[in-house]
Each structure stands twice: as C-alpha cells, then as structure tokens.
C-alpha cells in the first residue's frame, strides 16, 4: 500500500506534506513532494484527496494482491471523482457525493 507522486505535475504546494497522518512526505531537492517512507503509508488517501492537480495516486502493494492499478482523486464541490487506471491502461471513474450518506 503506498502512493506515487508525479513530479511533473507536482507544484510543490506542500499540502500533502502537511496533511499526511504519518508525516511521511517531505520536500525533495527541487521542493517537490517526495514519499520518503513508502512502506510506512497507511493508505488513507488523505494526500491523494488534498492534491489539487492530481499528482498523487495510490496503489496496492504486490504483497496484498496489487496488480498495478492506480487511484487518483478529483474533487469538484461536493463531488469526489475517484479515477482508477488499470495497468492495461483502461480507466473507470466512480463518483461519490459528500452530501449522500452511505446506504450500508
């Protein structure tokens, strides 16, 4: 369980550094976000949600059955669009409205 940071997209805004509950992200030499302890990631996706430019994706480790899919988040008002890109390049989106309670 961990995250990947797309350095091309990262703006260096440090929001992810601040919000990580484990303080696992630090700035690199170019002031872009670096996940310094990838194996310490809990998988809470807080940083993924915080990133305004979709530079952070998260994935399941191979040891827990991960097959290379990546999950990114795009927030639009109350809507959270969860984009999944599989290793084969296929994409899928699930949209959750923060105003809707869980049915279960």
């Amino acid at each position, binding site marked *: 369980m961990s995250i990947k940071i797309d350095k091309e997209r990262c703006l260096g805004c440090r929001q992810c550094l*601040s919000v990580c509950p484990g303080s696992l992200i630090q700035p690199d030499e170019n002031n872009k976000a670096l996940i310094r302890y990838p194996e310490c990631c*809990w998988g809470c996706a807080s940083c993924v949600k915080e990133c305004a430019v979709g530079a952070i994706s998260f994935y*399941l480790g191979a040891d827990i*059955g991960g097959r290379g*899919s990546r999950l990114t988040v795009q927030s639009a008002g109350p809507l959270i669009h*969860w984009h*999944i890109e599989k290793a084969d390049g296929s994409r899928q989106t699930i949209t*959750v409205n923060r105003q*809707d309670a869980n049915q*279960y």
Partner: protein
Amino acid sequence: MKKELDVIYLTTDFLIIGGGAAGCYAALTLSRESGYSALIAEKAHIKRSGCLAAGVNAINAYIVPGRTPEDYAAYAKKDAEGIVREDLLLTMAQGVNQTVAQLEAWGLVILKDEQGRYVTRGDRNIKINGENIKPILAAAVAQEKQITVLNQVNILNYIVKDNRVYGAYGIGVEDYAFYVISAKTVLCATGGAAGLYKPNNPGFSRHKMWYSPFNTGAGLAMGIRAGAEMTTLEMRFVALRCKDTIAPTGTIAQGVGAKQINALGEIYEQKYGLTTSQRMYGTTRENQEGRGPCYLQTKGLTPEQDNELKKAYLNMAPSQTLKWLESGKNPSEQNVEIEGTEPYITGGHTASGYWVSTDRETTVRGLFAAGDAAGGCPQKYVSGAFAEGEIAARAAKNQMDSLSGCNPTSLPESLAVARQKQALEAILNREPPLFRTEDLEEAMQQIMDTYAGGISASYRFTVSQLDAAAEKIGQLEILSHDLQARDMRELVFVCELKERLTLCASLIAHLRARRETRWPGFAENSDYPQKDDAWLKYVNSKQINGRLAVFCRDLVPQGERYEHQDR
C-alpha cells in the same frame, strides 16, 4: 555540526494531547462552556490525523429510538464478559446522541428516511457519510479563538510533580524544536497502540493495517512512565477484517447482512456465539480445524448493492474498492475473504487504557483521559470518544474553577528541562549504532507475535512464553538506548519505538496476571484455557519507584460513581 533543539515555552489552561475525535470535541466543549484557553498538540495535522484520516462509515454508538443508554451499557458489559466500568459506559452512552446532533450541525451528513428520521443499522448504529469527519471537526476548531492548534508537535512526556500534572514536553516532527508546555489541566486524547505485534502483511504493506499505524501508544506510555494507573491492557482487540486490505467488515456484515461462512460454505457464526471476541474466535477455530479460508458471503448481491458497497468503502477504506476493481470481480461475484488482525490496544473498542474516575480524571491529579486512551469503557467508537471528550473537558473546567486564585501553572525546573532536551539531542548526535530503529521494531513485533499471542500463535500463549517475551522485550529496551536519528522525523520514530516497548512490557504483565481465558478470540491463555468467574475483577498496574506493580481491583458496582480514593 552538532544538532541542537530550540526550546519553546508555551502556556495554556487546558493542554489536549492528540487532535482526534476526543481531543477536538473536548477543546470545542471547553471553549463553548468557559473562558479557558485550550491548546491541542497534534503529531500530524488535525485535518486528517489519527483513526479517522480516511473517514468512517457509521456512528456505531448511538441510542436509537426505543433504546436507552442503560441498554447500551448492558450490551457493552455483556460483550466484554463483565469486565467494564458501568459508570463510564452509562455516562458515555448518555452523551452520544447530543454529540452526534452537534456534528450534524457542523455539517456531518447522516442518512434519513422520508420522515426525516435517522436510518438505523442494527440496534445501535446510524449511517453517515463520514469521509470528511476530520475536516468537519478541524473547521469547527478553527472557528474558536480560545483554541490554539499546534500541528506537527509530538508530545513525549508529562511534567509531573507530587502526582499532579503541570504540562508536557514535546518535539517538532519537522522543526528542531523542544516544547515545554505549561498547563493547569491536561487531557490525554491520543490513540491506543498499533504496531506492537507483527502485522498481517509484514513486508512492503506493513502499515496496511486496520488501526492507525501512527497510533504508537504514546499517550499510554507517557502515563505508565508518570506512574498513572492502567487497567485491562490484557483485553487486546483483534479485529475481523477483509483479507489483504484489512478494511472493516461491518459495512458488509451489517450493511447488506452477509454471513460468515467457511470454505465448505457453512455458516459458522452461530456456532461460537455472537460477542465480538466470539466472532473472532470462530474464524480462528475454523481455520485451525481445516475449514478455512473464511468469507463474508457476498455472492448473489445485486449490482446496485455492488455499487453502493464500492462507494461506501471509498468513504472509509478506499483500498478495498480498489481491490474489487483491480480483481475485476465485484462482491456479488466473489465472497470477501476475512482474517483476524494482529492484536491492538485500543480503549475505543475494548476496556484497556487509563484507570479513570467517572469524570475521566486519571490517578495523576489534573490529568484526564478520553477516547482510545481511556480504559473501562469499551465500544465507545467515534461518538463515545466525543462524549468522553465532553465529560473530561467539563471536569477539567470545574477543577480549574476550584483552583482559581491559586494558579497552579508552574514551569518545570530548568534542570529537568535541560535533562530532557539533552537526552533527545544525544539521539540526534551520536554515531549510528549496529541496529536501526526499524530493526528493533521488527524484533519487537516478532517477539510479541511468537511469545505473547500474535497471529502466528493463533492469539495463544503460555505463562512460560510470556516470561520469555518479557525477558526479550527487556533486552530490546536496553538496545533502544543506543538508537540514533538523523533528523526530527527519525527522532520521532525512535521515541515511538520506545513507547511501544514500554507498553509491551505492561501488556505482557497484564496478560500474565489474568489467569483465565475470558475473551478467547482476543487472547487464549493455554495454561488457563477456561473462563473463571473468580477473575470477575479488573487487572490494573502502575509503576512505583521504577518497577511495574500489577494488582486487582473489585468491579465497580452498577449505579455507583467512582472517585479515586487511593491514588
């Protein structure tokens, strides 16, 4: 160049350690009901820290129409096989609905029917969208001028003199800062402890656990060091969770009514009983007797249920939704495999934590505890943590009112400050030792797993094994004196390991003291495999002159308040 820490002195009325559910709610209560200042010290950032970082799917402690707080307390007592504090359960249960109404006013979305009534899940739960429950709390805190939030500050030790607390010491998680915070009253609102035992997935995904891996037992360890009394640490929590992702199962089990089945397709949950520990025990037994793996029977759900489940998990444990999508099989097409986690110490689910009065004051005067750090009150969950934060804040206010005129805030002696600071600087400035922090952490988890009833031991142990565990953990504590940190983040890792080792030693002593098996899914003492009602009492402990004393206390009778008489 020698690394040094800048000393920063701060003063507040009410110091709150940990900005989670209990801590934030306590701060908000104090600021609403008094003119006192509160300072929340949070090791991460209150917007997404602690257990609720990813969100939560339901309020699991709620008094639904037709039920009473007394019903809730009776249920929790039964589930814990009698080892609870009924005064704590009742006062918690009396408070939960009001706190939930408050959260709704701040913006929490709760599922309602056409008449505008909350939709219940079972007898005690309501359904919410809790993805943003931490941002909601953080926003409420930000509105209050009396509350100061210190993010990225990790509290390490209390300032205690003559069994009264005067504040706490902490360090910056990034900044080279040593904090000396003076306060009239202090609330321990930290999490419990994960990471004591080897986890389900000890490799790359070692932190893909259910309980927050950043809950390192800090609050409990600093209490143990300060001589505070702890209770029922031996009631560990082992959670039944989705395999690999270790995501919660209640949304599937209670939400869509999926049954626990073994590999033969037999529903086994009735066979072992329905308490939380019995459900866990059943799954362990089915596996041991060759009928594993076990599953939640989701095959046959509708496509609509598939979609709602995927959304629900995104709001709480997104890895589980990713798992379904990645495997290409929906829950309706493939049962969800379940497994038990490694044991955790968490007072939100079991009765382990600080021994407190009905007002949530610990045995150290002026030090309160609420939420996962507070013992005696299992099944409090999120709303119970709010309620305990409220109770503790009111009690702290009353204590400060009665102290007015004789301001007890006092700075610690400069010698004590220098000693604490120098010990930390030594860790930053020494040469790297043979063993790294992560090496000792792995060793600790291996010892606890093998000798103190971890997953590989099917949660079983003997007294001889516990003795071996105690000796080996003692050796690691000696090795931990030489650990080195290259920067502040690593210094926090070193301190967290030491906290865990302190807690392991107490946990082992508690497991050893209870000579029966009361919660078989959570812990099985192979030397005493039966429940024995001679053990209907609390196992408590405290450090006296550097040595851990373990002793029993009689159950607090129903209907009685509890004040500390002998602290």
